[in-house]
């Protein structure tokens, strides 16, 4: 390995294996598993259950199956997954609840993906759960219903709580980077400079029950469509810089969330799981809780508690 590559690898390791507050990891656990419980409840897997065998187009481990799972299996797994996700969020029986919730979620998503099209709506949430699967003990060290509360002991800080969070941050950043780079790889700058986004929005509006007023407003104005296309590439490819520069999440996190809100409004595509995953992983909720708690204390005590 060259020196440059070695230095880059060492910097990446230093980022990924840095200490973090155990409360921040707990917040990520609570947020991601709560989000998973919601998605298990609302994502419509029923529409593919019982699909005729001739249309079954399996992906990943579903190649082991000969046909789409039945509605009966969905009806059995869904409540199990939701309960497991809620238990995981609460920090209960993590060695059981974490993998069970994850497994049910992946099973349902593989059903949706086995109809001829790869679905990306829940991918980022599922990927960011993987580091939590590997750290059930650390992820439930604090803010867990299953543990005895010891408020007088400060929440531990260490690499054991840092690497799952930072791995999730790398996953999020790389996901956006790859989405942006694949656009440039397969389309080049034409993705921005051509009428591409106008046609995307026109086609999307035509598939919706009613014409999409906002999407058509953008599509009818070439300059606006080009601007939004350029902004999309900037946010996707640029997001990875958040791993290097600590202040950039203040720009890119609201930026990508706005992107997903815009996609939802103009194209009726549900990427809420992705947007909320970014928020859960990149916001330091533990620091926010500390800040809010300090502001509620009388002024003299704030100085003492700081």
């Amino acid at each position, binding site marked *: 390995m060259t020196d440059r590559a070695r230095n880059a690898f060492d910097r990446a390791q230093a980022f990924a294996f840095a200490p973090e507050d155990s409360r921040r990891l707990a917040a990520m656990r609570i947020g991601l598993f709560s989000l998973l419980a919601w998605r298990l409840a609302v994502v419509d897997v029923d529409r593919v259950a019982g699909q005729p065998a001739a249309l079954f187009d399996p992906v990943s481990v579903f190649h082991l199956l000969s046909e789409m799972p039945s509605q009966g299996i969905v009806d059995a797994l869904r409540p199990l997954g939701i309960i497991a996700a809620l238990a995981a969020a609460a920090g209960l029986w993590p060695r059981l609840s974490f993998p069970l919730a994850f497994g049910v979620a992946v099973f349902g998503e593989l059903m949706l993906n086995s109809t001829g099209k790869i679905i990306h709506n829940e991918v980022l949430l599922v990927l960011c759960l993987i580091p939590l699967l590997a750290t059930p003990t650390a992820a439930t060290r604090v803010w867990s219903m299953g543990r005895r509360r010891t408020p007088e002991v400060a929440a531990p800080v260490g690499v054991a709580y840092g690497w799952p969070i930072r791995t999730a941050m790398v996953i999020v950043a790389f996901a956006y980077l790859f*989405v942006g780079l694949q656009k440039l790889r397969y389309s080049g700058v034409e993705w921005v400079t051509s009428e591409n986004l106008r046609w995307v929005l026109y086609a999307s509006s035509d598939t919706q029950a009613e014409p999409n007023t906002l999407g058509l407003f953008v599509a009818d104005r070439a300059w606006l469509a080009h601007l939004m296309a350029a902004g999309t590439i900037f946010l996707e490819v640029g997001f990875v810089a958040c791993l290097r520069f600590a202040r950039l999440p203040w720009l890119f996190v609201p930026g990508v969330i706005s992107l997903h809100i815009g996609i939802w409004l103009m194209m009726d595509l549900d990427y809420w799981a992705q947007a909320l995953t970014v928020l859960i992983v990149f916001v330091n909720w533990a620091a926010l809780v500390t800040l809010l708690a300090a502001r509620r204390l009388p002024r003299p005590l704030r100085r003492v508690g700081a």
Partner: protein
Amino acid sequence: MPRFARPFVTLLIAAMIATAVFAWEPWPLTSFRLFSHVRTDEQTGWVARTVEGDGFEGAYPIGAQELGFRGFGFVMAEFVDASDERQDELCRTWVRAAPELIGVEATQVRLYQRHWELSEREDDRALPGDEDLVYVCDGEGLVSGD
């Protein structure tokens, strides 16, 4: 920190990179190809219609149905290059599903290729364009088509 953490993270991130570079789709790992190809004004799609016993031809919006039929566009992309056996299998599936999906006893399903332009619009909708009958299916399989 567990000893497996470093190799675990390295492997996970390497797998993400590999699936993106080589365009693999071992879900949840994916190549992240979302809207990665340039869209053009000219559009091509497939439209299905049922034919009942009395010859009446009606709409058969396969792609809007439940029971896993929504991937109709992608299945048609496979259909055009599929083997005779595979085309027969898909034809039988679509014909036999019509009663359950749309309440129609179909004797045939006709597959039209539609061509239209997104820029040709009226009342905030693209004009329907042209349709060419390409395939005809019945309960036994493909009846006619290339």
